[in-house]
């Protein structure tokens, strides 16, 4: 227990900050994932074969390639890509991207592929009559989407999104290879300097369990909220 005390002698405060970091990365990644889903879900549902192909390529590639490989691509290729874009605009200095941004972007793209599939499934299982009804009523496109489709889609999507959240939360442990100090990295550092890996990795496992357990309870509440009236 001494190892977990706060202050200079223990690792309690470091691990607490690391847990916050894990939560921050997970939420950022999830939001970036939603952004990607917002772009790719319409592509997957579109009638054009070409747009369909782009959407399918994204989800198939990301879901078929290991997360770690994607993270390495971003870790080693991220600043190169940004520098290339910057050089077009005439900026030639070295740019280093923060590990938080690379990490949440890499995990975000992965999480986005799963979210895209969830949203596609949810929209497809909304009754056709709903689309036709809002067309017949002459609703404008934004109203149609935000007031008719979205609330129904969310109800159907939330149970599956909770799975995506779990996957995203667990995937953030992989960012530790890039040196971002989240739970896994902090445990690695602590295990290295105290020579007590069993304790620190087990504690990391408990922290992750706690995070998944608490977030599940929160999501269950959301689920109840969005299925009012059913």
């Amino acid at each position, binding site marked *: 227990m001494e190892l977990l005390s706060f202050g200079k002698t223990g690792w309690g405060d470091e691990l607490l900050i690391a847990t916050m970091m894990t939560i921050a990365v997970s939420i950022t990644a999830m939001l970036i994932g939603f952004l990607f889903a917002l772009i790719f879900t319409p592509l997957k549902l579109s009638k054009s074969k070409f747009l369909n192909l782009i959407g399918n390529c994204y989800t198939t590639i990301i879901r078929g390639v290991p997360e770690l490989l994607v993270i390495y*691509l971003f870790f080693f290729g991220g600043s190169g890509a940004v520098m290339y874009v910057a050089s077009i605009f005439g900026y030639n200095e070295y740019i280093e991207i923060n590990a938080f941004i690379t990490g949440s972007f890499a995990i975000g793209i992965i999480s986005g592929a799963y979210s895209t599939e969830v949203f596609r499934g949810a929209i497809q299982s909304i009754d056709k009559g709903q689309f036709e009804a809002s067309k017949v009523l002459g609703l404008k496109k934004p109203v149609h989407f935000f007031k008719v489709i979205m609330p129904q889609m969310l109800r159907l999507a939330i149970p599956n999104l909770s799975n995506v959240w779990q996957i995203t939360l667990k995937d953030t442990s992989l960012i530790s290879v890039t040196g971002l100090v989240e739970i896994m990295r902090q445990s690695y550092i602590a295990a290295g300097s105290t020579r007590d890996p069993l304790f620190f990795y087990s504690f990391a496992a408990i922290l992750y369990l706690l995070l998944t357990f608490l977030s599940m309870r929160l999501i269950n509440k959301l689920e109840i909220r969005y299925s009012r009236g059913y």
Partner: protein
Amino acid sequence: MDFELMINSFPKLLNATLITLKLLSASLIFGLFIGLCFAILRVNKNPFVNKFAYGYSYVFRGTPLLVQIFIIYFGLGQIEYLRSTVLWVILKEPYWCAIIAFSLNTGAYTSEILRSAFQTIKPGIIEAGQSLGISSKIIFYKIQIPIAIRQSLPAYGNEIILMMKGTSLASTVTLMDLTGVAKYIISTTFKPIEVFIVAGGIYLFITFIIHNVIKFLEKKYSFN
């Protein structure tokens, strides 16, 4: 685009794929066995037994695979007692540690898949067996298990693909699997995109094959 690098790295990556496939097949075989055992425990009526099985699957599904590998590879070596037993022969090898972690992980997911398959078997089928005077043991092994396996094929196919991606974590415990070698080539040449295309292509190819094999099996063993 450096095509020369892509062509040169291809044989090295292909070689590493062999390790990935070995890890995958070993952990799937052990994992299926573990999963089946725990699924049987889950449907057991004794609350202590099924709580234990539930706890196992909850812990392994609720924590990242990386933590599990690290606990087994770095953590277990710390226990002095283990070092003196025969188990140490296995536990000091990163290869076996990775297989143990993967098997336990996929076993947890497999047990959930099989459990839900057991629970969706129509009671009429079991009742039919009972009214034919078949003993409950034979009903379980000859009727419930085959049906459960067929029911769980689609979900199990997904699990195989997830596990295939999971084997990439073996590279974190010094194993040179496909991802490990890809990372090595990237960090020596600083050409991430080219290596990603080749390594990712190999992974996608394996995914494609697994997907089609499962589809074929589903068709072959469909009820209609």
